[in-house]
């Protein structure tokens, strides 16, 4: 049996120390498998984004452990964690985080070059998200939904098995948001990726294979 794409055990995260310490996560056990889309839901400040950052090797936990495709993150250097993110993960952000000075194609080519891939794949990736005609458009020339689809195409550069998305529909209207969620679901189901989406959006919950609820840093029962 293959290891889960992502797994945590007893994962805790405390920000600050002493009287000002804030416990963001408390002994979280979590798994996400290849081929599933999983929605992390919960009220603001519940610890959803902290969990996503820990899964994305962007934070070091206070306690507990994270495994990525069976590999423990404990003991890895920052450089090794960065390499892991680069090779195995794609990130999708709430505010797209596209490079405003680069065209849609060039935004994707940055990721392709970082991953040592053919820059020509940018057209194919944009095609996959339905934006082939927007190759030369700058982010300012794209709608919110188009920007998010470019961001998804960029996250797909290098064909990572894990996609981590932070509120990908928060800035989108309902129709566009549904299109984006459908796209993410297809990436999980048709291409066998593990997709973890932090969201408040119930539409994501509807399309997700599983919904994990977090409240006060704990996974809800």
């Amino acid at each position, binding site marked *: 049996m293959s290891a889960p794409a992502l797994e945590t055990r007893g994962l805790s995260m405390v920000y600050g120390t002493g009287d000002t310490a804030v416990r963001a996560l408390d002994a979280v056990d979590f798994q996400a498998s290849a081929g599933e889309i999983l929605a992390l839901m919960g009220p603001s400040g519940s610890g959803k984004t902290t969990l996503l950052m820990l899964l994305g090797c962007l934070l070091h936990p206070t306690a507990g452990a994270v495994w990525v495709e069976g590999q423990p993150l404990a003991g890895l250097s920052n450089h090794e964690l960065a390499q892991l*993110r*680069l090779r195995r993960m794609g990130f999708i952000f709430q505010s797209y985080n596209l490079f405003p000075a680069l065209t849609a194609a060039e935004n994707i080519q940055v990721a392709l*070059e970082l991953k040592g891939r*053919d820059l020509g794949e940018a057209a194919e990736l944009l095609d996959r998200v339905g934006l082939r005609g927007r190759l030369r458009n700058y982010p300012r020339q794209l709608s919110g939904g188009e920007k998010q689809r470019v961001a998804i195409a960029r996250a797909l550069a290098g064909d990572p098995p894990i996609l981590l998305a932070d509120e990908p529909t928060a800035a989108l209207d309902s129709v566009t948001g549904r299109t984006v969620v459908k796209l993410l679901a297809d990436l999980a189901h048709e291409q066998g990726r593990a997709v973890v989406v932090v969201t408040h959006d119930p539409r994501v919950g509807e399309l997700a294979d599983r919904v994990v609820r977090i409240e006060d840093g704990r996974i809800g029962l």
Partner: protein
Amino acid sequence: MTGGRSHWGAGMAGLLAWRNLAHDRSRFVVTLVGIIFAVVLIAMQMGLFLGFSDSTTTIINHTRADFWIVGKGSQNFEVTLPISERELYLARSVPGVAQAEALLVQFMLWKKPDGGNESIILLGSDLNTGLAGPWHIVEGRLEDLRRPDAVMTDRVYMDKLGVGRVGTQVEINNRRALLVGVTQGIRSFTTSPWVFASYRSAQHLSGFADDKTNYVIGRLRPDADPTQVRDALARILPRTDVYLSADFAARTRDYWMFTTGAGASVLMSAVLGLLVGVVIVAQVLYATTVDHLPEFGTLRAMGAPRAFIYKVILSQAVISATLGGLPGIAVSLMIAKGSEFSAAAILVPPRWTVVLYVITLVMCILASVASIRKAMSIDPAMVFQR
């Protein structure tokens, strides 16, 4: 669309750097203006230093002499001890010496036609040999100096000396002299302008004893070994110091530039210019980096290696150095050209433009260190907290 496989950082880092700079055109223009200003500042300070250095040896460098015989212990060209004219005849007798002649250099008082005095340096040379004397004569002819007590000075100093045109009668050391010509671009390192005359006129105007002179200068035979002849001259003329021209120029330059401290202060100004330039460029490059911090955060979150981010910022520095440096160098060359007619020479020789570009490049790269530190200090987790 770009196709083909590319090693990371080879192209997209440069493209991102260029677009980051050019994306906000008004900021980019401000950046370039800042760099141009810094380059011009450095070039001017360097040019003043070079001009200052050059002016200390301008007469020596324009004299066709191979060797110089000076009073023992003389520190520089302008202030020297008299030597006996006998040394001239002894010098001529040394094997390897093709010709030798006396040269007179004296600080004098120039009485301006409308009153008042100015200090000058009178230089008297043998007009027949052409070893020394004025050059770049723009009014009058060298032959005009053969007239008794005829003199020439440089156009730059005509106002200072109170003479408006050739033919003006003046007084030097209470003796009448006639301005018969004007040179251009012969600046004095001291505040006293050069005034050229024939050797005999200079002797008469200065009242220098007939059997004394300041310098013996000369040419070597083509087959002579310069060092051997210099040593032979030194042996036969023990009351003098003997230098080859390059050595005497270096001795004079070192005296004025470093012994007096005058050069050190100009050099310090040049170094300060460089520091101010680094600060200006650092400021503008840093501001550009800060503007794009979220993008560097995104790159770090994606797992971009440090080298990629270094490459983006260093590419910004190289692009800025090139696009700001080259116009800055062009402006500096124009200012240097304009200074040809002023009393303070700013020299920017062509080979120094390469040096200036390298300095600009190094300055921009040094200035980008702060930007690199800032970009690398970003917590990549920030991209989830925006």
